């Protein structure tokens, strides 16, 4: 059985530094994943401007906008939670991390509702539905919806992972398993969540705003 609190480095500061470097390297690789999708979007939109414009015009802009505010609020709550934990306000930190996870759940619920509406309309990835047959003049529309599903789907998977991670952290902090001296653990999880937020900050104008 391993002791998670056993020292692995000569000092806590060095351990924190190593953990932060590893997290940022991981985040850079995550950026590469989404950059590929953004590059595909740029190419598709340049080649099929009319179809992409049609897809964006028929996006559920209210749901997308509400989700933007939900994620921005969640990022603020988590940043505030990190500050609280570093300052020794363990109870406040646990509550704020829990609120962040719940906001993530709200995001996923709204996204699920949106996906349900898209499926009902036939706006599915691959372009094999009556919806696309009735829009045969827009030859880039299947590409638009495939990219929409892949990009937002990959993002939703990341949100789901973040919700689970933050849920575990909320419980652990509430049980004093993450003391202020080990706040860097929550900070690294927060870095991941902020990246998820940053990705959505770009997905929102690309798929919802004209």
């Amino acid at each position, binding site marked *: 059985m391993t002791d998670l609190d056993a020292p692995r480095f000569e000092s806590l500061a060095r351990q924190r530094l190593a953990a932060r470097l590893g997290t940022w390297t991981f*985040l850079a690789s995550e950026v590469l994943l989404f950059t590929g999708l953004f*590059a595909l979007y*740029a190419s598709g939109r340049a080649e099929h401007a009319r179809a992409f414009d049609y897809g964006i015009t028929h996006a559920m802009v209210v749901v997308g906008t509400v989700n933007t505010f939900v994620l*921005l609020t969640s990022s603020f709550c988590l*940043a505030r939670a990190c500050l609280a934990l*570093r*300052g020794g306000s363990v109870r406040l930190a646990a509550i704020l991390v829990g609120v962040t996870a719940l906001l993530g759940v709200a995001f996923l619920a709204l996204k699920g509702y949106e996906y349900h509406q898209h499926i009902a309309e036939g706006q599915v990835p691959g372009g094999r539905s009556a919806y696309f047959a009735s829009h045969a003049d827009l030859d880039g529309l299947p590409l638009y919806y495939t990219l929409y599903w892949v990009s937002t789907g990959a993002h939703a998977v990341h949100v789901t992972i973040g919700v689970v991670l933050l849920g575990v952290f909320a419980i652990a902090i509430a049980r004093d398993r993450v003391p202020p001296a080990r706040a860097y653990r929550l900070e690294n999880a*927060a870095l991941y969540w902020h990246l998820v937020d940053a990705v959505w900050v770009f997905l929102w104008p690309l798929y919802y*705003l004209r």
Partner: protein
Amino acid sequence: MKEPPTERGALPLWLTFAALLSLAALSGYLATRSLGEGLGIACSLGIASTKVALIAIVFMDLRELRGGARLAAIAAPMFVAILILLMLGDVRLR
């Protein structure tokens, strides 16, 4: 990497949060105006970039980073810029 400040107040976080909400509202408002295809997406992405910069600098403590971690943080947006520029260059020059 410096130790993150624990004594500072939450004011910078609140100010950043207010700026993020304001920028999101501005982005939503501009989308309702007829700015044209090119200008509209340029404004939206410009505002999005500003929001991400705020998140990175304030929420992700980018200013506190040193050494390899800072290199990784800087490399990430460079990957984005290089790949998008090469992709758009290829499309435009066909």
